[in-house]
């Protein structure tokens, strides 16, 4: 239905534009629409839809046709199957989406072989972009927020010692490793490191946090997937009275996804996160983005950092269509067109680093507070400008390959 409607819209645009060289660009969107992580997929999908709805006319006389597929569970297998078929059967010219890192990793050889650009709108394992010259990432790597957080926590938040608690899967390990690197470089000391169960089920967080409480660090750096885990962690943090015990909660923005922040209550107040997006980010681009979002999805629906990346992803695709005049048949040309792409999106200024095909963006240190209208919001404390993926700069592990 939706595809039909877009086609109609695009057709209208063509009729108005009336150019001779109208091309239809086929884009495959692969996101988890079902399963335990479906809400992550939907946050990005909504941003895609919104961008296409508002900007379909910008690429006239060309049209965009979007084919959506379910990314399935984070095994890589389903994503590999549906994406390969998007390429072989539906003949898409580029693929985008990809919430889970395993999907992107499994697909790297496929897109290399097929010479189809793969534009990642979320998957955050740092070394993914090294796997194929056809991968471009518009979202972030785990190192983007976590590494600068290390120095910031030591210098500004006043953490001399810190405990790390993380969901026991690669993004969690990446994020804590990045934080540790930055934190120790600044002079801090990690006193405890607690893995907190699988990303599939939300565990009872209490025993993990109780252990942190008993260790009495200055700060707790936590990483959890931004789905149901985030709410659970915040509730346990509040219940156990860690803040009262003098243990500050810090972490990447996954800790307080904007669409769940209002549910978190008083426990979240005072949490300091490093992130590239917050609903309360004060910029005209973000204001407009928010406005359109609420208009389309209602006042109770909030965009979050994933939606912001989704918006920029679609923006980059549209710009590329214009730049290449609708001819996206050569994958390498598309990737080259994306290298150095820059724009001002909801996140602020973003650029694609031509060397690594990864994003360069501002990271903001933000504190949760209660706004005068009674809702929770984020206050920008500080901004680190033009942050690159430090993992590749420092050549840590696989990032160096």
């Amino acid at each position: 239905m939706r595809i039909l409607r877009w086609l109609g819209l695009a057709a209208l645009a063509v009729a108005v534009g009336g150019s001779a060289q109208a091309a239809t660009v086929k884009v495959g969107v692969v996101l988890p629409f079902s399963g335990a992580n479906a809400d992550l997929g939907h946050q990005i999908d909504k941003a895609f839809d919104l961008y296409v709805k508002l900007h379909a006319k910008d690429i006239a006389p060309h049209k965009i046709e979007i084919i959506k597929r379910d990314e399935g569970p984070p095994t890589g297998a389903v994503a590999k199957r549906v994406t390969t078929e998007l390429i072989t059967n539906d003949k898409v010219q580029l693929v985008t989406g990809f919430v889970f890192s395993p999907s992107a990793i499994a697909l790297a050889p496929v897109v290399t072989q097929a010479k189809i650009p793969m534009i990642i709108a979320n998957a955050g394992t740092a070394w993914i972009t090294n796997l194929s010259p056809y991968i471009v990432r518009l979202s972030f790597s785990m190192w983007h927020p976590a590494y600068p957080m290390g120095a910031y926590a030591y210098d500004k938040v006043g953490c001399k010692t810190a405990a790390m608690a993380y969901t026991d899967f690669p993004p969690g390990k990446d994020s804590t490793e990045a934080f540790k690197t930055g934190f120790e470089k600044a002079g801090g000391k990690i006193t405890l490191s607690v893995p907190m169960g699988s990303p599939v089920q939300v565990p009872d967080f209490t025993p993990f946090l109780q252990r942190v409480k008993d260790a009495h660090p200055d700060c707790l750096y936590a990483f959890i997937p931004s789905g149901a885990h985030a709410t659970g962690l915040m509730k346990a943090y509040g219940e156990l009275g860690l803040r009262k015990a003098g243990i500050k909660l810090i972490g990447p923005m996954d800790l307080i996804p904007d669409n769940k922040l209002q549910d978190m209550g008083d426990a979240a107040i005072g949490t300091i996160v490093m992130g590239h997006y917050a609903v309360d980010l004060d910029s005209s681009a973000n204001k407009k983005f928010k406005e359109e979002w609420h208009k389309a999805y209602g006042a109770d629906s909030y965009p979050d950092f994933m939606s912001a990346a989704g918006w920029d992803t679609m923006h980059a695709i549209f710009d590329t269509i214009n730049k290449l005049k609708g001819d996206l048949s050569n994958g390498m040309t598309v990737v080259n067109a994306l290298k150095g792409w820059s724009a001002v999106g909801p996140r602020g200024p973003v650029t694609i680093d031509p060397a690594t095909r990864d994003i360069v963006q501002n990271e903001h240190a933000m504190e949760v507070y209660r706004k005068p209208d009674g809702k929770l919001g984020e206050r920008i404390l500080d901004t680190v400008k033009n942050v690159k993926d430090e993992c590749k700069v420092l050549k840590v592990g696989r990032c160096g390959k």
Partner: protein
Amino acid sequence: MPQYANIAVSILFDGLAYAMFLFITSVGLSVTMGLMNFVNLAHGAFAMIGGYIVVSLTRSYGVGFIPSLIIAAVTVALISVRFERRLYRRFYRATDLEQVLLTIGLAFMAIATFTYFYGPIPKSVPLPDWLQGSVNFGFRSFPAYRVFMIAVGVGLIAVLWYAIERTNIGAMIRAAVDNRRMAESVGINVDRLFTLTFALGSGLAALGGGLAIQLLGLNPNFALLYLVLFLIVVAVGGLGSLKGTLLAALVLGIIDTGGKYLLADAGGFFIYAVTVIVLLIKPAGFYGRE
């Protein structure tokens, strides 16, 4: 208080609260499987539905948390009667495998339906103030919500124990679990008895689902996500045994919490290791019939 005593108290207390959640949600499944030999993999779906009723009532209609829990349990119990009468009943004589297919199909449909209406974003509930703070017991303070969970659990155990051990209906249930044919031949209407226990079990699952939102969050996949956990409690406790389910919930809850606290690296390991060890020694569970 010395450090190790403090740790022990933490583990026992948190483990107890977790055990109560396990017990409340699993006990219905245990009775269903013990009494009718019916494998109900849609049990988690009833818990999920209960959770969503609580979410809707508290958020959209401003009903208090406690009344919502009760309404959710009663509503789900009533809905489950309908399901039992119309659908499940046909499959009591069917093989386990057919029952698995039927109930997993129902769970899939429940997940899709609730995704349709509520979306996939995890929900949470607003709690009354008195459940948010902590309760001071003199030597230490504990999170109020966990104290509340333990209180609800203990209360339910007392009621269930009385109902099963001291009432006529309870005696009939025990008779039917022990020997169904014999119970039928002395005139017990096992079908009706089962409808009753099924409704009770589903209602309790709904209550457990409502209580768990604060702990684990709630999204439609709740229906299958924690099913393995419930099955483990049932198997370790022994089919159809109230005592067994309680003991299993306590052992697994406390060991799981302790494992996560003391050896977080291998945290997920313990609950399964205990399951294997218990089942190798006592294949029918703590109080199951061999």
